[in-house]
């Protein structure tokens, strides 16, 4: 893509991404928040595509759809007011978190501008590419697998806690193990 084409996709998409990211925390509806986040992350995939990083961009667009829909599922499951009909503020400890977010944002921006990025694209048979492949499939594989299985356990646990009856399941009335007994 030409430099003009890249700029025409990059800047509007980047601005829209930031606006949608901001509105994730302005809305009280869990469905809207999750889908706005999906929109922002999908636009981030579009930024990757505009910057000629095809595979990462396409993969980001693909993966985020499923992940954010699952997140909406969990948010609707756990929130007492998923539609946001009563109004709800999704921000907490405003001043300190705003200061922290601004500091991290400025720090990352400085890092991005100050880094001496390589000017040319390396060829597929460069030693760096091979080294990254060995690192990902070798030593780092254990941490990836561990993180993946941990997330899976968290998801199964979350579903168990959210389902009616909780982790103990629906019990016979009167045996003192279910939450129904606590209510009555």
């Amino acid at each position, binding site marked *: 893509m030409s430099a003009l084409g890249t700029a025409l996709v990059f800047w509007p998409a980047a601005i829209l991404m930031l606006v949608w990211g901001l509105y994730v925390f302005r809305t009280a*509806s869990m*469905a*809207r928040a999750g*889908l706005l986040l*999906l929109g922002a992350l*999908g636009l981030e*995939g579009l930024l990757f595509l505009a910057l000629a990083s*095809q*595979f990462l961009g*396409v*993969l980001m*667009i*693909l993966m985020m*759809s*499923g992940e*954010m*829909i*699952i997140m*909406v*599922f969990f948010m609707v499951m756990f929130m007492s007011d998923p*539609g946001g009909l009563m109004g709800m503020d999704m921000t907490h400890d405003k001043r300190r978190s705003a200061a922290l977010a601004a500091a991290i944002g400025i720090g990352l921006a400085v890092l991005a501008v100050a880094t001496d990025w390589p000017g040319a694209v390396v060829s597929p048979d460069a030693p760096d590419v091979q080294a990254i492949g060995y690192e990902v499939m070798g030593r780092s594989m254990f941490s990836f697998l561990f993180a993946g299985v941990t997330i899976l356990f968290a998801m199964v646990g979350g579903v168990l806690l959210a389902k009616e009856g909780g982790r103990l399941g629906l019990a016979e009335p009167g045996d003192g193990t279910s939450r129904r007994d606590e209510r009555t």
Partner: protein
Amino acid sequence: MSAATPFAILLVALAGAGLVALLEQAVAGARLAPAAIGAAAARRLREPLTLPASYDGWLYHGAPLLLLLAAVAALATVPWTPGFRGIDLDSGAILFAAALAYVTPAVFMAGWGSGHPLAVVGGFRFVALMLGFAMPLAMVITAVAAPAESLRPADIVAIQAGVPMALVQPYSLALWLPAVMAVALMPPFDTATASEELAGGAFARYTGPEAAIVALAQRVLVLAVSGMTAALFLGGWHGPLLPDALWMVLKTLAVAALLLWAGRRLPRLETDRLLILAWKVAIPGSIAAIVLAALTTLLFYR
């Protein structure tokens, strides 16, 4: 990709949606009536837009547009001829799956945004269904891309010059067809949107031009998945005597006709049985398909 490509793709989408609507009449055993399709569309477009009693405006109005965008983007990745390939990326086959992945949020937005209990249930049904069927879809793409050693659809077509992939990997085709039928909202996988289920489910509340967009997007989806099936499994534009484009059109329409016919013949199952089919049969099956595809590649394509 030239400046005219987007317009050409839109033209293919509109013309193809009309052909799919004709095929629907044909598999239903009705007399072919192209005028009736145009009249129904015109009636929809003139119909006043009535809104549900309580609804989430952004999600409700955004859903048909997102559905159409996803359908057209998926259609744009289909390689029609060596000269007309739409969006021709190195990872175009993944882009096809990525575009189809946005059918799920669109249906969820429609269901949730309509603010009607049955529509919300419809939206959630589709999310559950696609969590199961999106994985075989992506894994089968990996399996058919392995012999070509490329995720570019045109390369996968090119390697089928001798033998179509449907003969090399019939098991992959068997896993692929239910997955694409589910994502294209086709019966018997349409428990989230069929008019016989949940009183119409996720899209039941839409009227006027928005209902027309939903109907158009559903036909474009059928066209996109049929075109990709023809490209990935039936050898795409390869064929004797006839020109490339005509072979591709014939194969696409044949797949669309097969899917529509199967949809009318097969009974609609409950969502939990469809999920059993996805999680216990299709996903383990597609992992096996990837292993078999790797073996096939090493034995016959190297």
